[in-house]
């Protein structure tokens, strides 16, 4: 957190209009008031100034972030930009939303505050994303309709897709076809699931073969590399891995960060501060504290025992087999919440280790092949 950039995941509300079976958040009805937002921002900016950090990215999430009206965000935007100007800090904003509450009333603030871009979520096949009392088909249809309207307004819609067993069964080719050819999604990221938050039947039953997931990842990367010869489609994390293995600048996902305790922070609508959105609503024992109860965020972070444990994680992991791994530089033991929700200690590596190493090896091979082919052309 003492670098030159600060990433803040800010939950403007803990409430959600969807009822997805595998959601890792324990929802509440709390919403952030502008007055409380001002307090949060003042403390965040004070912390940044004290630590000479010059740039802030706020990733707005929920719950469902669009449950607060566009006017609220417009005021929040003005408030934050004014406060940031006083501190000489640059602030960028990103929005993660399920799009279900989207209407054209959002267009202005999406353009001004979020650079006319939003990130949303859709699985294929959709098994778990639902609106209360409805099935996945209803969710898909509603989502598609909202996304179509947003695109017509010129909004760039990115997608996060969580894999499930049905995704593996239909295969990489069909998955790619659906997202790219049928839905017109040209920028998406695939995520691995984890059973975070309160348990339920779906979460108990959602484990998949890691080897099969690895195979799917490699096949999807191949489909992308074969079909997207004009560089029109971006799929995370494949695009950044290709950058990495061809020695270009790469922004790898946070699950592979050196130490997430140094890279990001989440604050929910109640003011609780935690490592990220995966922890902040569901794991009170992992809270670093409450920003409304502290005089300064710097002190809260410095004195938090929970944060100390996160900081110590990579150091502990180096006593295990991660230090022997050829891909230590990319992964650093993976995501703590994925280890925790698999019933492992925070000081154990991510249970998707096999998937990651298989994918890294595959992408390294493909990047080498591409480089060789390019040198032949030269």
């Amino acid at each position, binding site marked *: 957190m*003492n670098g030159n950039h600060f990433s803040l995941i800010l939950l403007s509300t803990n409430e959600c209009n969807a009822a997805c079976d595998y959601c890792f958040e324990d929802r509440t009805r709390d919403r952030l008031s502008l007055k409380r937002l001002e307090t949060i921002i003042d403390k965040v900016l004070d912390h940044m100034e004290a*630590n000479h950090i010059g740039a802030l990215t706020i990733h707005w999430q929920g719950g469902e972030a669009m449950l607060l009206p566009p006017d609220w965000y417009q005021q929040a935007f003005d408030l934050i930009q004014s406060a940031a100007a006083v501190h000489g800090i640059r602030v960028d904003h990103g929005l993660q939303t399920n799009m279900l509450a989207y209407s054209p009333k959002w267009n202005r603030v999406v353009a001004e505050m979020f650079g006319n871009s939003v990130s949303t979520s859709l699985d294929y096949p959709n098994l778990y994303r639902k609106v209360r009392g409805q099935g996945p088909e209803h969710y898909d249809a509603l989502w598609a309709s909202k996304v179509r309207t947003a695109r017509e307004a010129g909004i760039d819609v990115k997608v996060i897709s969580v894999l499930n067993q049905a995704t593996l069964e239909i295969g990489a080719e069909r998955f790619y076809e659906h997202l790219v050819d049928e839905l017109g999604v040209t920028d998406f990221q695939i995520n691995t699931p984890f059973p975070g938050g309160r348990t339920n039947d779906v979460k108990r039953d959602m484990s998949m073969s890691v080897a099969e997931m690895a195979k799917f990842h490699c096949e999807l990367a191949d489909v992308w590399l074969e079909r997207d010869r004009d560089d029109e489609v971006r799929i995370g994390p494949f695009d950044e891995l290709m950058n990495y293995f061809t020695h270009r600048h790469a922004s790898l996902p946070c699950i592979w960060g*050196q130490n997430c305790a140094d890279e990001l922070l989440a604050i929910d609508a109640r003011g609780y501060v935690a490592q990220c959105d995966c922890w902040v609503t569901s794991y009170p024992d992992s809270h670093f504290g409450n920003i409304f109860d502290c005089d300064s965020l710097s002190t809260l972070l410095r004195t938090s025992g929970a944060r100390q444990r996160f900081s110590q994680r990579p150091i502990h992991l*180096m006593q295990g087999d991660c230090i022997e791994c050829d*891909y230590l*530089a990319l992964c*650093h033991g993976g995501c703590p919440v994925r280890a925790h929700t698999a019933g492992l200690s925070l000081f154990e590596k991510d249970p998707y280790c096999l998937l990651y190493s298989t994918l890294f090896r595959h992408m390294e091979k493909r990047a080498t092949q591409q480089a060789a082919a390019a*040198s032949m052309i*030269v």
Partner: protein
Amino acid sequence: MTHSACLPAASIVYQVPIAQLEAYRGCGLIVRSARPSVIASQLSADDLTNLAYVQLTSLRSEPDALIHWADGLPIELLLDDPALDFASLYRYAKLLDNHPVRVLVPVTTGFEKAVRLAVSLQFAVRLNIGQPSAPMLDHLVRLLDDYLHRSTISQPIEFFHSMLLGLCRREPVSLWAIQEEDPALICLVDEQGDERPPGRLAEADLGPDPAGFVDRWSRGLVAEGMECAECPFVSTCRGYFKWPRRDYDCTGVKGLLHTLRQAADELRGDLAALAPHAGASWP
């Protein structure tokens, strides 16, 4: 942060403890201390002008005082016990946001883990290699292979890096200089303020002309008909691996140097093949 990037070639650089800084102000300096906060508080803006880098001699303190201090100034971290201390590098990775940072790793038990982690965190590395034993040489062979071929390693590992570049460009390089152990280039100042030769030579009596030591040493070894007399790498090694034990068997280290020369030849060939087409330049 290679020797050539940091150390002015024309004049000697003094490696001083921060307690002796006052006596050496105005000279070319490397300043060392165990405490980041002491470095940040005692070095003035004027001192930075003549500073090649600062060396942190312990990783026990938190590095926060240095993160935003003297942006861009190179820092070297000394890992005393690589097997024990290597994981502490995670705490120091924050320095890389604003500084080139190199880790000085003694080639002793566990060094291979320290180097692996250091380069994974994007630190440069300087191996304090000395006269490596057979088990250490096995690790060095693997490390050199990783350095040359593994795409996850993008930072310099010295002495491999400067040697590879020198061989590739067909420029004269000296291992003593790369390792910052040439008394003609570096003078170590101890805690009491006494001036000594650098690195492994610190306890040695080099006579009235320490600056001429490397030349005398390497000529002597060749004249005595030691292994160096027949060695194809004598012009770059200059007897580095024969100190302090003259009977050290160089077979293993010559293997490393041979691999580096082979890689340099291949690299030069590849660049020559590319140059007419793509305007490739020497690394």
